[in-house]
């Protein structure tokens, strides 16, 4: 019997599980995928936003501000990185340039008061690689980069350290409220909890319908494709380049990553599938062309990786929060394109809706996230790592072993990649995948080898 069942271990569910566990509640986190971050949270732009362009007065803005503040407050204790790049909202036409003052005004209204307008000369002085077609820009110093996978992993590790339970490969298939408590049927057995928190992301509407009988919103999956350039590209751009915002999405971004790559994306493709995060050749080419147009020196830069993420968009732009106190239900859904930033804030918000008192954990332990940021010391800087397994991303055997053990070991290749970066570099496994198959034998499902050699 649990106080809280959180369904969905995306970044939101991970943050919520941590918050309630720290409050002293008995928490179970249920995730249908082989690992945490199997849904929308698998692929994003990894920007810790300021909220400068969020709808004024919205709950989204409040959660982004609170989530960002808490991240900055706890990150050092959890060993989480921050790359303080700042962002430029870049105007490439007179029309776009004309919109900058209004964006600056909105930023001020949202409490982001350190934005400044930069003219063309100032921009080119700051970013000499920028295309000379640039017109003007708005500098947003507070937009930063984080590790999109280590952060939620650290949230869950802390939740586990204070007594939470996590079940992966566990899909909630039915949910009944008996007037006092929820009875959840799952693919790995039943669970009981007083309160149900829906953090089911791309399946949030399905879960809401399972639990409450009808869903108050519908997920309209919106895919975002990305192209990752070689690490050599980072010397060309040290700042996030944002477009002047469009109505529907944040538009295509060119940004460094905390791992030392350069990323262009995402696209905004409406699709029916909630799971198919496939890329397509034409979109990829268009993204590359866009990147070349912004930074012409990218022309001869090799491509390292391709990926896509799916936003849990709904028929409306705002977050779809639902609180049913009588039925002990909190829904945190439609967290479309700012969830990485807002997750800790959403967790605070959910906690504020919850009335039952518990005894908070007085001195929680602070488990350490994997150290994967390119600008900080990595595992290979410490002697005794054995050998480097993934040469492109400099992943050590010690890191692989750590990812396969501990309280939340990786059980599939995706989980291993997100915890270590193995095979995520330029050769994509040419040099190391076979070696990894040996090191992970018996640990991953599906395995990296065909078990019974013909």
């Amino acid at each position, binding site marked *: 019997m649990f106080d809280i069942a959180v369904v969905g271990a995306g970044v939101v569910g991970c943050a919520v599980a941590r918050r309630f566990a720290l409050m002293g509640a008995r928490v179970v986190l249920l995730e249908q995928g082989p690992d945490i971050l199997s849904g929308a949270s698998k692929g994003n732009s990894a920007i810790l936003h300021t909220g400068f362009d969020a709808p004024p007065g919205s709950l989204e803005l409040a959660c982004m501000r609170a989530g960002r503040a808490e991240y900055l407050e706890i990150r050092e204790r959890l060993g989480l990185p921050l790359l303080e790049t700042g962002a430029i909202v870049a105007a490439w036409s007179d029309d776009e340039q004309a919109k900058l003052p209004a964006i600056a005004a909105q930023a001020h209204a949202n409490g982001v008061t350190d934005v400044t307008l930069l003219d063309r000369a100032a921009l080119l002085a700051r970013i000499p690689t920028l295309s000379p077609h640039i017109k003007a820009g708005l500098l947003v110093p507070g937009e930063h980069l984080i590790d999109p996978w280590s952060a939620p992993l650290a949230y869950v590790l802390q939740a586990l350290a204070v007594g939470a339970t996590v079940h992966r490969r566990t899909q909630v298939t039915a949910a009944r409220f008996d007037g006092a408590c929820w009875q959840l049927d799952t693919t790995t057995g039943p669970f009981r909890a007083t309160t149900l928190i829906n953090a089911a992301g791309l399946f949030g509407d399905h879960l809401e319908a399972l639990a409450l009988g009808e869903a108050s919103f519908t997920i309209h999956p919106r895919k975002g494709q990305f192209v990752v350039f070689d690490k*050599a590209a980072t010397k060309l751009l040290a700042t996030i380049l944002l477009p002047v915002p469009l109505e529907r999405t944040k538009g295509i971004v060119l940004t460094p990553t905390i791992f030392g790559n350069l990323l262009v994306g995402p696209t905004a493709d409406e699709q029916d599938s909630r799971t198919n995060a496939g890329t397509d050749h034409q979109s990829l080419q268009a993204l590359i062309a866009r990147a070349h147009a912004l930074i012409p020196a990218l022309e001869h830069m090799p491509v390292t990786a*391709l990926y896509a993420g799916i936003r849990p968009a709904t028929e409306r732009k705002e977050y779809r929060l639902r609180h049913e106190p009588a039925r002990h239900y909190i829904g945190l859904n439609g967290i479309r394109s700012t969830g990485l930033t807002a997750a800790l804030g959403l967790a605070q918000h959910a906690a504020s809706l919850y009335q039952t008192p518990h005894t908070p954990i007085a001195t929680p332990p602070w488990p350490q996230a994997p150290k994967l940021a390119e600008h900080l010391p990595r595992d290979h800087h410490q002697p005794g790592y054995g050998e480097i397994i993934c*040469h492109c991303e*400099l992943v050590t055997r010690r890191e692989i072993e750590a990812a396969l053990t501990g309280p939340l070991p990786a059980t599939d290749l995706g989980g291993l990649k997100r915890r270590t970066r193995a095979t995520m570099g330029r050769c994509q496994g040419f040099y190391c995948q076979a070696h990894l198959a040996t090191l992970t034998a018996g640990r991953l499902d599906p395995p990296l080898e*065909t078990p019974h050699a013909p």
Partner: protein
Amino acid sequence: MPPEPAYDALIIGAGPAGIGAALALKSRGIHNIALLERETDAGGTPRHCGHPPFGLREFRRLLTGPAYAKRLARAAFDANIPLLPRHSVLALHPGGTLDLATPEGPRTLTARRVLIATGAREAPRAARLIGGERPLGVLNTGALQAYCYLEHKAPPFTRPVVVGTELVSLSALLTLRRHGIHPVAVLESGPTPVAPWPLSLFPRLLGLPVHRNAALASINGFPRVTSVTLQNGSELACDGVLLTGRFTPESTLARMSHLALSTATKGPAIDQYGRTSDPAFFAAGNQLRAIETAGWCFFEGRRIGEFMADDLQGGLPAPGDELTLTPGEGIAYVVPQRLARVSPLRATLQLRLTEPALGQLHVRAGDTVLLRRPLISAPERRVLLELDDLRPPPGTQHLTIEVAQ
């Protein structure tokens, strides 16, 4: 950390090219050298090519890759050349300083001359912009061979499609066959197989369908491959994708450093002595261009090792007074990309064509054709052009190499 004493020469990569160079340096009396290798064993890529032909010219014997790699390692050992295994070079700094990761902790090493011999690899799926989902079971030949010959494991597929018909695809087919894996088909994006006849018949001899003009559009399925979609829209059921060929130099170190890269080869640009734009750094082997045989790389390493010895002993012309070489019409790349202006030039150009050609090869300075050679060749064949007799007129800065019909 206090700086460690400088070496005369350090060699990055203990493959055929690196070992060839080390042997040459040693035989010229340059003893203060070491081979830096990020893997546990020396030998380079041949370590996991469990098939012939290797070693015919170097050891006068038909060897498999692993046997050849052992012989190379043995030759270096017998010549008392120190091998520093599990030493990953992370960065190159001007003048011959290297940052390394080692299991004992970070190191910084310096040498009067450094050779970059880090080889080449096949283009993975991302670099080919193949769309679709990202399931397990999408491999290059290099990874397949590492499964089969280094780790003695079965790769994560049993019915893959094989993409590409370069020579290396034949290695791939042989390896699959030996391990009881039956490919569904061979896909070639162009109109004809790339491997020269009669080798191009090999897939058919194995009874495999070969689809021409069959470019891969997307890979489907998750967590495993269930099918591939071709650009013409047709779909093929399979449980894996083996991406062969499309080699590219593993030139990360050069690309991340101050050294000039050739946009044509994607490797460091060199002069006829193997010197890069920083005269402390030389480069050899498949690092220079993709891809030549192990034997070619070994002899190239040896030749450039000799030049490094000359240089250390004061025998190379000072860098600076140079001609640049540009690939023109019909030429995919040319190595070297620069020529120190000496007489005779002592240079043999190595070229590849962009398409089959029957005509003449021209070396041109401005509007003046300085050299004409008859040419019948195709992109998959190496073309060599000796320039010893070439006398570029005084004041010449650039030479263009091109195909004239």
